[in-house]
């Protein structure tokens, strides 16, 4: 981590970058926040990069692209997909970014630790980026606990897309293989359910939705200046929470709007206060796109046309949905 700070200070001092976009220490040791740093002093005091720095900073680059001078941004391998996609959509300015591809050993989910019944967490050690990432020691109000690092990881890290940065100016720190699950396994499980089971499953999940828009606002693909659900363009500006339809509409359309653009960065699921596995929507589209139109990973590059803005003459017919049973 000190290497990151030193490099950032170097780039600041040389005038190469005007500011640094990274993570700032939280007040509980496990709640860092995205932050801009403009001085060496603030980097020394507040900068942090550890297992809890899950936030994908690429979306902040939309605003940073409007500022004068370059912004140094730290992107994890999976974040670089989002950044590429944002370049493709002309939402960020590559010239305004100095990207340090920062290594990642799997990001932690404090909710996952809590779900193990750990209460009153005061401190988590073992989350340091230089640690071996095997065990976390959790100091709590009610005694110390040990937790396996992998068990405490975010869902997305279990289906990690890999250690490669898709775009960056330099790479720092090592990454670790964290993939231990099949990306589409959950989707296939649901697909195998009966229609009634599927319906009940999603109804239950979506009944938890409180329309707080955290999923949307954190999503690098949802970069619209004004969401359709906030504008009057479709007469759908509703904030009600009446029965499940509203949420269904919101989540289907949201997933549809990011289909072919979603890099599966997993931020939506990470931030949902109700723990709704929102990636199940986006990943379903990804799976379908892969099956119907050939494998496609959004954000692998910044030029290829997305699958919904392309076609072939012999694409499958919509009736495939019925026919495949």
């Amino acid at each position, binding site marked *: 981590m000190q290497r990151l700070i030193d490099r950032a200070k170097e780039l600041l001092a040389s005038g190469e970058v005007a500011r640094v976009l990274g993570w700032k220490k939280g007040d509980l040791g496990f709640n860092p926040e995205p932050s801009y740093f403009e001085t060496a002093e603030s980097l020394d005091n507040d900068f942090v990069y550890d297992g809890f720095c899950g936030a994908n900073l690429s979306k902040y680059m939309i605003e940073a692209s409007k500022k004068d001078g370059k912004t140094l941004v730290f992107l994890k391998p999976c974040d670089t997909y989002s950044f590429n996609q944002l370049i493709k959509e002309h939402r960020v300015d590559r010239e305004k970014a100095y990207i340090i591809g920062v290594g990642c050993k799997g990001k932690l989910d404090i909710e996952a630790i809590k779900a193990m019944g750990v209460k009153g967490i005061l401190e988590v050690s073992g989350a340091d980026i230089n640690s071996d990432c095997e065990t976390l020691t959790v100091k709590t109000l009610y005694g110390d606990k040990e937790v396996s690092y992998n068990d405490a990881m975010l869902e997305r890290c279990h289906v990690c897309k890999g250690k490669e940065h898709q775009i960056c100016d330099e790479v720092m720190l090592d990454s670790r293989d964290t993939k231990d699950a099949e990306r589409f396994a959950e989707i296939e499980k649901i697909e195998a359910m009966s*229609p009634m089971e599927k319906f009940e499953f999603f109804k239950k999940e979506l009944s938890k939705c409180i329309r707080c828009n955290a999923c949307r606002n954190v999503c690098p693909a949802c970069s619209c200046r004004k969401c359709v659900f906030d504008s009057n363009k479709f007469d759908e500006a509703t904030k009600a929470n009446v029965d499940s339809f509203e949420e269904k509409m919101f989540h289907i359309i949201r997933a549809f709007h990011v289909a072919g653009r979603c890099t599966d960065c997993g931020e939506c699921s990470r931030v949902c206060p109700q723990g709704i596995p929102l990636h199940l929507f986006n990943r379903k589209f990804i799976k379908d796109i892969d099956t119907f139109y050939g494998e496609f990973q959004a954000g692998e590059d910044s030029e290829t046309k997305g699958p919904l803005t392309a076609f072939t003459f012999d694409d499958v017919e919509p009736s495939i949905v019925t026919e495949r049973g």
Partner: protein
Amino acid sequence: MSMNNEFKPKIVAFCCNWCSYAGADLAGSSRLQYPADVKIIRVPCSCRVNPMFILRAFEKGADGVIMCGCHPGDCHYSTGNYYARRRMTLLFSMLEYLGIENGRTRVEWVSAAEGVKFSTTMNEFVDKIRSLGENVRLGDLRCKD
């Protein structure tokens, strides 16, 4: 819902102006019957049909939504229906994934010359929706008073 026990489904059909709407006109001038449950909305091209429109129809109480366009390759705008085809495939697949009966949505390519196909398609679709019954899984309760 009417009190007599026969279920009268609400069905919205989006038809592209150049092929399917003309096909529906031909069905009409050929006096080919299909149930009055089907109401047609004219759009310039199948690629104008936003998934939002389809969900909106279900929200407001539609029991089935069908989209008709020119046959692939015959689009008046040359490529519109190719985009529509991808969009609808993905949307329908998503609806099925969410546990919505997959017969409630359908895409059919109907040319201006296919009046017969238009009416057969609509008859089939209405039958299908009747067999599925009222749409309860999608739809806003507030619209059901």
